[in-house]
């Protein structure tokens, strides 16, 4: 069955809704676009839709498939009318079934936005004054010029810089990437461009470092880009994360980045995943790529990436920033080449390494370091000349200095059995640590599963947002000294985000407390109790 249809006749809404009924669906969201009586200040008496049917059907299917994959919904359908319509008639109908309302709303919004921008559908407005105008649907907000329906609908806006227009071009098959400015380089040429097209690069983190990395690699025509990021866009990200804008706040960065990259270079395949890498999946994921660029603000992710790079032989480009400066290290992942642990053998204690949120950062600083990562990535993919000697790069943007400190591998992991043995040991430990983290959609499910709750937040946090289930209260900093107060049995520690609870649970396990766990994502990840679909109420281990 087609998910996307064009229809010259009125649409049977009942049948469409019924087709989307699903036992796992806790939310159904639909959107109806209707013909209104005015546009751009002119009174409209009716309109006609005309579609380039073959292309509209193919692109419509693609949009629905994207919506399902990106937002994890169960099913989606869309019908767009063609032909003559009167005021109030249904022009487009979208329906989405999902486990929860959030995904349903998001997918619905995604579909209508993409359809407006990408489908080759035009409308001819009949004004009450007797004249008519053809309007490309992708420009309805600003369309006022009269144009022929058979002219290239995007062409007259082609010089306009908004990315959605380029996408319309792409949908029409008119866009061919032009890499001439880089293929002109002797070190690149057609052969180099072919190498880029065949390359698969994973970018972990689509934030301050990831934005320039993704933009430049997509622009350069890297054939496949993987993006991993579990975060939602926050207003505080916008001063340094240049792929996004103010309208995107609250949406998943992977979806936003994938959409932006598809607009930037439709020739690039983008695989976006909101599921964080962990000790259980990282080797398998790395093995699918030629090169990995680590761009998170998370020390644990950086060590995990270094271990996985060493074990899979996948080159890795690490970078991190602090206020006005940054560090960069290329891990060659070949025997004898140093890894991150050759420099700092163990992951620093949480908080010791700073973060953008705690320490602050000047927006362009990750821009510079991310851009350097992109340069290093292209050099590796294109086999361009680069220093043979592995080094740590220190970039000081206050003094405007770059210092290369050569890394002597013989003083690193070699003293502890070599990078491979060290990485194997660390990954096994990380895998054991993962067992600490458990996932529950609601606290009552945790209690039903046999856990006793320990709220490790500070008293003012608890007062602001008390748990809706019985719990013992001991602030995280005091827990190690107050274990005698803890109830017997299996304990589930709860904090605001899951960070403190995980840290304390691991520390206590280290001290021999066995049956202790941490609620993944903390209070922030709990669903309001009225918003749970029956299918998801069961507790399960973190994936």
């Amino acid at each position, binding site marked *: 069955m087609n998910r996307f249809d064009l229809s010259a006749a009125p649409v049977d809404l009942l049948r469409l809704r019924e087709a989307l009924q699903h036992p796992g669906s806790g939310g159904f969201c639909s959107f109806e676009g209707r013909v209104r009586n005015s546009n751009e200040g002119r009174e409209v008496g009716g309109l006609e839709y005309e579609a380039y049917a073959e292309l509209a059907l193919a692109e419509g299917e693609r949009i629905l498939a994207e919506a399902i994959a990106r937002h994890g919904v169960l099913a989606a359908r869309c019908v767009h009318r063609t032909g003559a319509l009167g005021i109030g008639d249904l022009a487009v109908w979208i329906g989405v079934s999902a486990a929860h309302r959030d995904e349903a709303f998001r997918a619905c919004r995604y579909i209508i936005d993409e359809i407006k921008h990408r489908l080759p559908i035009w409308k001819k407005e009949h004004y009450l004054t007797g004249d008519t105008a053809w309007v490309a649907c992708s420009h309805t907000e600003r369309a006022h010029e009269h144009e022929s329906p058979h002219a290239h609908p995007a062409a007259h806006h082609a010089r306009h810089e908004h990315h959605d227009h380029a996408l319309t071009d792409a949908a029409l098959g008119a866009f061919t990437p032009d890499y001439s400015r880089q293929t002109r380089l002797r070190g690149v040429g057609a052969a180099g461009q072919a190498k880029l097209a065949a390359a698969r690069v994973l970018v972990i983190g689509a934030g301050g470092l990831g934005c320039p990395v993704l933009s430049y690699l997509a622009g350069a025509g890297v054939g496949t880009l993987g993006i991993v990021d579990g975060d939602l866009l926050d207003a505080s990200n916008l001063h340094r994360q240049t792929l996004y804008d103010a309208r995107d706040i609250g949406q998943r960065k992977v979806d936003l980045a994938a959409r932006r990259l598809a607009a930037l270079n439709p020739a690039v395949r983008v695989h976006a995943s909101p599921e964080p890498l962990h000790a259980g999946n990282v080797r398998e994921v790395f093995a699918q790529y030629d090169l990995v660029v680590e761009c998170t603000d998370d020390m644990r992710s950086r060590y995990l990436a270094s271990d996985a790079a060493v074990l899979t032989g996948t080159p890795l480009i690490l970078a991190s*920033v602090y206020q006005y400066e940054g560090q960069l290290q290329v891990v060659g992942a070949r025997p004898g080449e140093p890894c991150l642990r050759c420099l700092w053998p163990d992951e620093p204690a949480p908080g010791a390494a*700073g973060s953008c949120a705690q320490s602050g950062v000047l927006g362009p600083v990750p821009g510079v370091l991310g851009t350097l990562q992109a340069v290093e990535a292209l050099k590796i993919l294109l086999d361009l000349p680069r220093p043979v000697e592995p080094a740590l790069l220190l970039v000081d943007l206050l003094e405007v200095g770059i210092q290369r400190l050569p890394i002597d591998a013989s003083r690193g992991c070699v003293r502890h059995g070599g990078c491979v043995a060290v990485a194997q040991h660390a990954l096994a430990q990380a895998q054991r640590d993962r067992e600490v983290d458990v996932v529950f959609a609601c606290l009552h499910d945790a209690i039903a599963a046999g856990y006793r709750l320990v709220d490790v937040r500070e008293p003012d946090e608890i007062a602001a947002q008390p748990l809706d289930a019985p719990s013992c209260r001991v602030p995280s900093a005091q827990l190690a000294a107050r274990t005698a107060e803890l109830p017997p049995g299996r304990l589930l520690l709860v904090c605001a985000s899951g960070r403190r609870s995980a840290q304390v649970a691991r520390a206590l396990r280290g001290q021999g407390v066995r049956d202790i766990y941490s609620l993944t994502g903390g209070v922030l990840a709990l669903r309001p109790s009225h918003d749970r679909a029956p299918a998801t109420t069961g507790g399960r281990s973190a994936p």
Partner: protein
Amino acid sequence: MTMVKLQYYAQLREQAGAGGEQWSTAAATLRELYEELRARHGFSLPSDALKVAVNAQFSDWDRALHEGDTVVFIPPVAGG
């Protein structure tokens, strides 16, 4: 006394309130030097959490100090 040139990165820069300084020290090794500076500036990180480089080469903490050395202390940073 040995005169050395010090460079601080990341948290150390912040805690010292400067990117570097000229310093006259009686310390014999890098480790002693760092402990001296830690007391002076209140550095929160222990030497084990840092890398140290002398004259643009990473070094062991036991290395002896020489007149005119440029010493760089480098903590790992996490921001992105």
